[in-house]
């Protein structure tokens, strides 16, 4: 079984988010970038499936500029076998990303695609579902457990009221939630080894995919700030104030 995982380069989850003064977006220059945390979980899950003998090859894919090579090297160091950079300088929205990944999934005949459920920059939570639709495959979104069987996958999903388990026929698409696994620490020897693993670059155009943005960003602004309130000394004071505010 071949697994394709997609990895996105995003502003590090610990970085302070600053909105650009012209309202055109969020500052990304001189900001620490790293692999989207949900994608790290996706790579980890693929590597675990390979270690169990269930997968034969893991291909990591990233879409973006040259700097995404760094993200792909991280995926290779975690255990992916080879990487593909789909090079583009334009903003790639979820539908376009899904089309790119669909083209590559077909090209590579990947049986399983694992993606993060959302990227922590645009917070869209769409690409995996769109990819599943384009490929006419089942989808196991927000997965917290994946079990491989002879002809399919059992996927436990985090839903609003609790958990739901679905059986997906293969080939399939899975998107990861936080509790699926804990990504491994990357060792120095593996970082060195990753440098020699194959990383190929293709252009988005060569995949014949329409990248035209369907959604225009009008402006990006900082959220309304909420000021700190008062420190209270006693529980009785707190209860009194809450009563006065008529919330209890």
């Amino acid at each position, binding site marked *: 079984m071949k697994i394709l995982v997609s990895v996105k380069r995003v502003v590090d989850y610990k970085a302070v988010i600053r909105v650009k003064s012209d309202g055109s977006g969020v500052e990304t220059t001189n900001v620490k970038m790293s692999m989207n945390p949900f994608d790290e979980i996706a790579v980890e899950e693929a590597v675990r499936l390979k270690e169990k003998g269930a997968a034969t090859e893991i291909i990591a894919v990233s879409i973006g500029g040259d700097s995404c090579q760094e993200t792909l090297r991280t995926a290779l160091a975690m255990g992916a076998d080879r990487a593909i950079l789909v090079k583009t300088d334009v903003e790639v929205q979820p539908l376009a990303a899904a089309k790119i990944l669909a083209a590559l999934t077909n090209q590579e005949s990947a049986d399983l695609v694992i993606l993060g459920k959302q990227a922590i920059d645009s*917070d869209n939570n769409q690409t995996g579902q769109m990819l599943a639709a384009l490929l006419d*495959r089942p989808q196991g979104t927000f997965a917290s457990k994946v079990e491989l069987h002879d002809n399919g996958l059992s996927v436990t999903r985090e839903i609003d*009221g*609790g958990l739901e388990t679905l059986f997906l026929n293969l080939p399939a698409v899975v998107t990861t939630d936080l509790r699926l696994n804990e990504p491994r620490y990357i060792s120095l020897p593996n970082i060195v080894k990753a440098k020699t693993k194959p990383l190929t670059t293709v252009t988005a155009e060569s995949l014949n995919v329409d990248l035209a943005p369907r*959604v225009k960003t009008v402006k990006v602004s900082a959220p309304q700030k909420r000021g700190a309130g008062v420190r209270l000394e006693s529980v009785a004071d707190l209860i009194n104030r809450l009563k006065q505010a008529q919330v209890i």
Partner: protein
Amino acid sequence: MKILIIAEHDNQALKQSTHHTVSAARHLGEEIDVLVMGSQCQKVVEKARALPQVKKVLAADDAVYEHQLAENGAALVAEIGKHYDYVITGATTSGKNLLPRVAALLDVAMIGDVTEIVSADTFARPIYAGNAMATVQATDNIKLLSIRTTAFPAVKEGSADAAVEKISQAIANNLSRFESQSLTKSERPELTSARVIVSGGRGLKSAENFKLLEELADRLGAAVGASRAAVDAGFAPNDYQVGQTGKVVAPDLYIAIGISGAIQHLAGMKDSKIIVAINNDAEAPIFQIADYGLVGDLFKILPEMVQELDKVHA
């Protein structure tokens, strides 16, 4: 403008997220239809008929839709939705599972987590875990939106006077099947619609201690929530999680107990009307957004709060 809303339900009850979604849709137009897709879901259809301003309830009541799986569900929604200007769901796990799949089938974009309807084609939504707000304009003919339910007040049901149209198209699902479900049973209000939420973090130290929160919640008629740290540590089930990747809530009163206030958590509750923070670390970031803060040992403060409340109600 023709609007199609996908009802959220469990074949028995219509979920509150639908009431919030209708409320948002009313900013876009007056011709609102609601699709109820399920099995043996007549009760839900009746409820949907009572949603204000809803003209027609489309009832796709068939065994193939029993678990509302995305594979055939999205196919049906795309089939019906192509005759509308807007297709809208709540930004819940079920809406997030279904609507992007519909979008790809229709070859249109989707705009998720809408918190403000600026105009017919322009919407505001949080990005970067709520650390920035994006105003975006949709260019496709059919606009697919998921609505951040906390941003729009729920509509009240009136009399069941919307027309019902039966959808006979039963699309089989040959790709996936439902295996099982384990839902957290609770007598308390649902997190996303509760007026008061008592939420616990790693400071609670154990699943056992989480019961202390429940005692407080019971006295306030509150829902119980948790931070990611508390869920990861196994103190509380996953569906208690409030935050960027869990549930987004905006109750009248949010009491954060033993929660330090990671950005991830704040993203899920910072729109609450009144925030109370109780933590032994005076430097905890949660105090920066709390209206009222109590610095101290939560194991002393919690029982004291319960006592005080019992006095009030005695």
